[in-house]
C-alpha cells in the first residue's frame, strides 16, 4: 500500500516535472525572476541603515531571503497546475484508475519542493558569482536547500487545498495575491527584525515564511545556530504535513462533488 503510494507519487512527479521542462518560458522565468528580485531589491534597499543586521553586505543578507521568497511564491502558485489538470479532466481519468489518491496530491507538493530546491541551488551559485559566501559551508548549503524545499511544500499543500476547493483560476489568483504579499512583508525577507515595528516582529515569529528565512539566513550569514535552524525546519515539516493533509481533505471534497 505505502510502496504503491510512493511509486505512484514518483511517476506523477516525473510527469509534472517533465511537463514543466517542456515550457521554455517557465524554465527561463524560474532563473530570471529570483535573479531580478535579488538585483532589484539589492539595489533598492542597499543604503537603508541597519537593514542587514550583522551580515557583511546587503547582498549577503538578501540572498537567503530571496531563496525563501522564491520558494514560498512558487509553492503558493503551484495549485494552478492542479486547476489545469482538473480542467483537462486528467484527474478524473486518474480517479477511474487504480491510481493512489494520496499520490495525486502528494506528487504536486513534492514537485513544488523539488523545484524550490533546484532554484535554491541555482541562487546560491549566482550568489557565489556575486561574491556571497555561505558561511555554514556544505551544511549551510544543505540547510538553505532544505528550508527552501520545505517552505515550498508548506505553501504548495495550502495552495492545492485551496485550488481543489475553489477550482477556478481567477479565484486561485485572488487568493494567492491576498495571502502572498502580506506574508512576505510580515517576514524578515527584506529587512532584519530589529528595525521592524514591534508588532510585526511578534507576528513574524508565527509566519512559516519567516521560519524558513531565519534558518536559511543563519546558514548563510552566521554559519551557526544550527539548533535554532533545526527547530525551524521541524516546524516547517509539521506545517507541510498539516497543509498536505488539508489538500488531501480538499481532494476528498472534490471527489464527493463529482
Amino acid at each position, binding site marked *: 500500500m505505502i510502496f504503491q503510494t510512493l511509486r505512484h507519487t514518483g511517476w506523477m512527479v516525473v510527469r509534472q516535472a*517533465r511537463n514543466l521542462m517542456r515550457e521554455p518560458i517557465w524554465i527561463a522565468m524560474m532563473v530570471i525572476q529570483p535573479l531580478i528580485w535579488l538585483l532589484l531589491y539589492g539595489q533598492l534597499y542597499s543604503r537603508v541603515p541597519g537593514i542587514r543586521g550583522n551580515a557583511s553586505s546587503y547582498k549577503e543578507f538578501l540572498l537567503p531571503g530571496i531563496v525563501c521568497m522564491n520558494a514560498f511564491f512558487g509553492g503558493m502558485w503551484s495549485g494552478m497546475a492542479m486547476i489545469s489538470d482538473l480542467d483537462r479532466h*486528467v484527474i478524473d481519468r*486518474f480517479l*477511474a484508475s487504480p491510481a493512489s489518491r494520496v499520490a495525486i496530491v502528494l506528487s504536486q507538493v513534492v514537485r513544488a519542493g523539488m523545484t524550490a530546491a533546484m532554484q535554491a541551488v541555482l541562487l546560491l551559485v549566482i550568489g557565489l558569482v556575486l561574491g556571497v559566501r555561505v558561511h555554514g559551508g556544505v551544511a549551510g548549503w544543505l540547510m538553505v536547500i532544505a528550508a527552501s524545499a520545505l517552505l515550498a511544500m508548506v505553501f504548495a499543500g495550502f495552495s492545492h487545498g485551496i485550488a481543489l476547493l475553489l477550482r477556478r483560476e481567477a479565484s486561485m489568483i485572488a487568493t494567492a495575491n491576498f495571502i502572498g504579499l502580506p506574508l512576505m512583508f510580515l517576514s524578515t525577507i527584506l529587512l532584519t527584525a530589529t528595525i521592524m515595528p514591534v508588532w510585526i516582529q511578534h507576528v513574524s515569529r508565527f509566519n512559516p515564511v519567516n521560519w524558513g528565512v531565519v534558518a536559511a539566513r543563519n546558514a548563510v550569514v552566521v554559519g551557526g545556530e544550527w539548533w535554532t535552524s533545526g527547530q525551524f525546519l521541524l516546524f516547517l515539516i509539521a506545517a507541510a504535513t498539516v497543509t498536505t493533509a488539508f489538500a488531501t481533505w480538499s481532494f476528498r471534497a472534490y471527489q464527493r462533488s*463529482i
Partner: protein
Amino acid sequence: MDSIVAEELRKRYRTVQALDGVSFAVREGEVFGLLGPNGAGKSTTVRVLTTLTRPDSGRAFVAGENVVAHPIRVRRAIGYVAQDSGVDWEATGRENLLLQGRIHGMGGKGLRVRVDELLGLVGLDEAADRPARGYSGGMKRRLDVAIGLVHRPSVLFLDEPTTGLDPEARAAMWVEVERLAAEQNLTILLTTHYLEEADHLAERVAIVSRGRIVVEGRPEELKADLRGDSVTVEIAELDGRAAEAADAVSVVEGAQETTVEAGQLRTRVPNGANAIPAILSALDARGFAVASVTSARPSLDDVYLHYTGRDFSAEDVEGGAR
C-alpha cells in the same frame, strides 16, 4: 454472464434527480448503448459504474465486483473514456499511455510493446512522440481510447466518444469501436445522444430519459415493435397554428403520436403510402400549405418519441443535469 449490472440506481445533485432508479444489465462481450439527450442521466450512470461517484441508493456490479464495496477491483477491470478527454496535453501520446500502464501495475518491456501496439492500432504511431497539445480533436479522442485500453480491461466505458468530433473523425471513431466490438470478451458500454450512433454501433440499447430507463432492446426489435410508418409533413407558414394542424391530422384513420415541431408535423400510421392522401386533404381542408411530405420506416427517433412522449431533438435543447 453479465459484465455490468445496475439495480435501481439513484443519485441526486442538489436540486436535480440525475438518476431515478436506473436498472439494466449488459452481457459479457456485448456492445450496449445508453441513448438519451444531454441531461438524461447517461454520464451520471457511467460515473457510478466507473466508481467516480457513489450512488445515493441502489447497487451496481462491474466485472462481478460491487462498485461501492470494492471500487479498486472495479478500477483494475475497467477502461474509461470520459465524455471530456483526459489527455495530458503537455505529455506525448506515448507518455500518456506509459503512465496509465504504470498506474495499472504494468512495466518493462511488456508495457512498451503494448503501448507501441496501441499507438499503431489507433493510428497515432507517427504522432506518438509529439506533445498531445498539437493533436487534433479526433487524435486526442483516439488517444483517450488507447489510454482506456492499455491494461486490457474486460469492460470499456465510452462516454459520448464522438461528441464534438467532425464527421470524418466520427466515422473513424465508429470504425474503431466496431473493431473493438469484434474483440472477444470485451464488454463495451457506450453512451451517446446520437440516435444513428446507437443504431449503428450498439447490439442493444437502453433509452434513458429523466434519470430512468424507459425501454431496452435490440435497435431492430425496438423499431419493429412500432408497427407502421412515420410520416413527416413540412408545413409552410405554420404561424402558431401547430395545435390546429395536429388536430386536423388526428381525424386520419390510424394516425397516432402526432407532434408538430419547428414547422414539421410528424405522425405514425399503419401504412404511409395509404395514409398520405388523407393526411394531405385533412391539412388542405384547414388551409395549411404543405411544402413536402415523406414517409419512412420507424427510426430510433420514433422509438424515443413513442416511449417518452417527447421528441428527441426537442428534449436535447432542454438540457438539465449531466
